[in-house]
């Protein structure tokens, strides 16, 4: 056999050996990959199974919360008016007033309600002094204490000197401060 033929033969055998070694190694690696993916696919299946109801549940929760939000915003709109409603929400959650305006289909600057909301204070005062609930407590079964349940609201939002007794069981009479000095009347000074 000629030397050139021997060299060719050796080169071909080398190529074949390299192919066999590397391809077998690749096959072994691919088998490991297959086994690993088989293990992973089980966990992925669990993830899919566990997350399947999430969309429906979250949609339902969002729907409930949206209904609650609409209800409260509607009530706020009705009671306070659209301008004041956005301002009230803004005063509690800074930045949220614009969203209320957007849901009302309006735009512009949110009204600044400030710390004391006068219409709300008036409502509280009315609840304390003139509301049917407050009156009803005196004549029938006790719904609430007509004399003291609204004391705090009356003390804050009405005349601090208080109304005089104008009906049985009405608000307590609160005397004025005694006059002291040269102009004091004799009977007052004697007291």
């Amino acid at each position, binding site marked *: 056999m000629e030397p050139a033929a021997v060299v*060719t033969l050796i080169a071909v055998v080398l190529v074949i050996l390299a192919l066999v070694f590397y391809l077998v190694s690749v096959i072994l690696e691919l088998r490991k990959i297959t086994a690993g993916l088989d293990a992973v696919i089980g*966990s992925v299946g669990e993830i899919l199974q566990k997350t399947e*109801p999430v969309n429906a549940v979250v949609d339902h929760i969002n729907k409930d919360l949206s209904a609650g939000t609409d209800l409260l915003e509607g009530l706020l709109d009705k009671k306070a008016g659209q301008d004041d409603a956005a301002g009230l929400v803004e005063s509690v959650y800074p930045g949220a007033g614009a969203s209320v305006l957007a849901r009302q289909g309006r735009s512009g600057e949110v009204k600044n309600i400030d710390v004391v909301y006068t219409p709300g204070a008036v409502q509280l005062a009315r609840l304390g002094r003139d509301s049917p609930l407050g009156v009803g407590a005196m004549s029938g079964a006790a719904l609430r204490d007509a004399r003291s349940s609204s004391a705090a609201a009356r003390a804050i939002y009405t005349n601090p000197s208080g109304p005089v007794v104008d009906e049985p069981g009405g608000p307590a009479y609160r005397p004025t401060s005694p006059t002291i000095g040269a102009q004091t009347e004799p009977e007052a000074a004697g007291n």
Partner: protein
Amino acid sequence: MTLWWIGNALLLLVIVPVVVILLRGVLAAAKDTTRAVDRLQPVAAAASKDLDAVELLGTTQEQVGQTVAVVADYGGSLDTILEDA
């Protein structure tokens, strides 16, 4: 004969190294993939375990419904008590 030797030289000096380099690249990629899959297994298992709390969403849904119903009741009472603007 000279051409045969040139062919042999090309085979040994060019073809064999190129074949080996290419095959080593394929093997390296396969080994990288194996390592990635090995790292993926604990992550997938942990993700699956983390999602165990998803079952509680049913309770959350129920509680939200009840809360909104209570809020609606309060809203109705406030609507009656408070005067409109």
